[in-house]
């Protein structure tokens, strides 16, 4: 009880030390969750891509960059001649080919935003179907759609695109990628929606025939085939740009490493700053109570007990600060998770509750121990102080 009473007696000093300890815990907790979330996002993205090579229109790839087209998820549409599909299929070493159709919805009416509509060929698809089937395994009829985890259907599980009402059959599990903001449908539905857009006066395709175009082609290479050679062969086709999915992931991983390194640097800087300030603050806090400790010594308290008392006070302050910091971090990370995801601009998949709890306990313990370490010198010094000198100085 004595350490707690001593802490409560000096609210201003305690508050400053608690805030610093809180910062240590917050930086460790938030930093760990961010880095872990990004790693999970990258893993999830790798699992979702599912193709060896991705081909898109050449002019678009040069203008926007393939990564931003496929990964950024900014609603848009782009098309190339559907004959490309057959040309790619005929290349030696190509095991499977499947096309996708991209269409952006309009942001119309109240409370709606433009979303990316992705159409896939149910017969040939090998990229979307494996993970879509976890949520929905039936056949998609015309104007049936599947929505990403962040897309909210209107009342009655309906969504309206270009004045055409679509049935929402299922909501897909969160992936931490931009697929969470997309709407998936069969190729037939997307082609019908393209026609609806044309009817509204929005010209998407030059010749107006949705059957003559595809947006992207996903290619799976045979086991013993050379991916680089196939990519080279696809790039020879006029108006097509192909890229290895792996190299795209490497690009994302590189950006992620930069962000991770920055997060780690900020966390370490906060740690060093807080530990130095806590050490100084605690030394001042203990020094200002020299008389009190001298009186305790006169009353018969051993040096070891005084050191223990100081260490106990430090532990209480840092433990309280740590718990407070972890709680604030959880509230902020959960409340602003979408803002964080949008801000990072990289795949981000927040860890689940058990992992979060583990990180939370670890952060609190580390901040408490670090606080204890910084108080060690003060405890050692005050325990060795000469009682007589202090009491004489005090008069």
């Amino acid at each position, binding site marked *: 009880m004595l350490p707690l009473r001593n802490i409560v007696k000096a609210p201003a000093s305690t508050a400053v030390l608690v805030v610093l300890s809180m910062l240590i815990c917050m930086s460790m907790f938030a930093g760990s969750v961010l880095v872990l979330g990004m790693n999970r996002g990258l893993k999830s993205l790798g699992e979702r891509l599912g193709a060896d090579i991705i081909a898109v229109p050449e002019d678009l790839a040069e203008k926007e960059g393939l990564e931003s087209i496929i990964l950024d998820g900014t609603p848009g549409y782009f098309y190339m001649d559907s004959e490309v599909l057959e040309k790619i299929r005929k290349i030696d070493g190509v095991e499977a080919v499947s096309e996708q159709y991209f269409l952006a919805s309009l942001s119309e009416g109240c*409370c709606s935003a433009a979303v990316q509509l992705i159409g896939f060929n149910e017969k040939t698809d090998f990229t979307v179907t494996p993970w879509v089937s976890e949520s929905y395994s039936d056949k998609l009829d015309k104007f049936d759609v599947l929505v990403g985890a962040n897309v909210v259907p209107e009342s009655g599980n309906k969504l309206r695109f270009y004045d055409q009402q679509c049935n929402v059959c299922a909501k897909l599990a969160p992936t931490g990628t931009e697929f969470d903001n997309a709407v998936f449908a069969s190729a037939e539905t997307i082609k019908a929606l393209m026609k609806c857009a044309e009817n509204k006066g929005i010209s998407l395709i030059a010749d107006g025939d949705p059957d003559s175009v595809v947006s992207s082609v996903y290619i799976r290479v045979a086991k013993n085939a050379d991916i680089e050679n196939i990519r080279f062969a696809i790039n020879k086709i006029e108006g097509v740009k192909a890229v290895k999915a792996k190299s795209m992931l490497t690009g994302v991983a590189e950006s992620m490493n930069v962000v991770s390194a920055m997060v780690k640097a900020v966390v370490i800087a906060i740690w060093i700053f807080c530990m130095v300030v806590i050490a100084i603050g605690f030394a001042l806090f203990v020094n200002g109570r020299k008389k009190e400790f001298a009186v305790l010594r006169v009353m018969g308290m051993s040096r070891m007990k005084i050191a223990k008392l100081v260490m106990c006070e430090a532990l209480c302050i840092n433990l309280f600060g740590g718990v407070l910091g972890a709680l604030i971090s959880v509230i902020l990370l959960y409340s602003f998770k*979408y803002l964080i995801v949008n801000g990072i601009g990289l795949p981000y998949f927040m860890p689940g509750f058990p992992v979060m709890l583990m990180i939370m306990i670890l952060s609190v313990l580390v901040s408490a121990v670090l606080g204890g370490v910084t108080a060690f010198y003060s405890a050692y010094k005050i325990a060795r102080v000469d009682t007589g000198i202090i009491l004489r100085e005090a008069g």
Partner: protein
Amino acid sequence: MKKRQFIFDLFMLLLSIFLTVGVLFLFHACGQHEDGKFAACHWAERTVFGVGIVLSFITFFNMLSKNYSEKVAFSTSIGFISLLAFATPGILIDICKMPSMICVSAMRPAVMIISMLIFVVSIVNRLFMAKEHKEA
């Protein structure tokens, strides 16, 4: 007591001003649609701004007041009005549905956290005031 009271009053005033100014410039709602219409979140933002102004005035007068009964009344009304601000985006007035929208990702959590903080401070302040008044 005076020092504690001053810190609590100042904290509530600063939070109220932050809520009022922040909802306009920092954690605002979605902008105008291409068709010229505003989403419902825009009106939620306006309402929070209005509630924020009222809160700022009450917390300011609460700071100036020295009378115990007046301070009790101010503190209680601050608590209730902060709850009103808390409930405005998403509960009393609809906001957008997509989590990627700025009103969902920034405005609602920010308004909720700040107004809940004002509410908690006003309750704690009220409890301290009652205790100190009893002791006096």
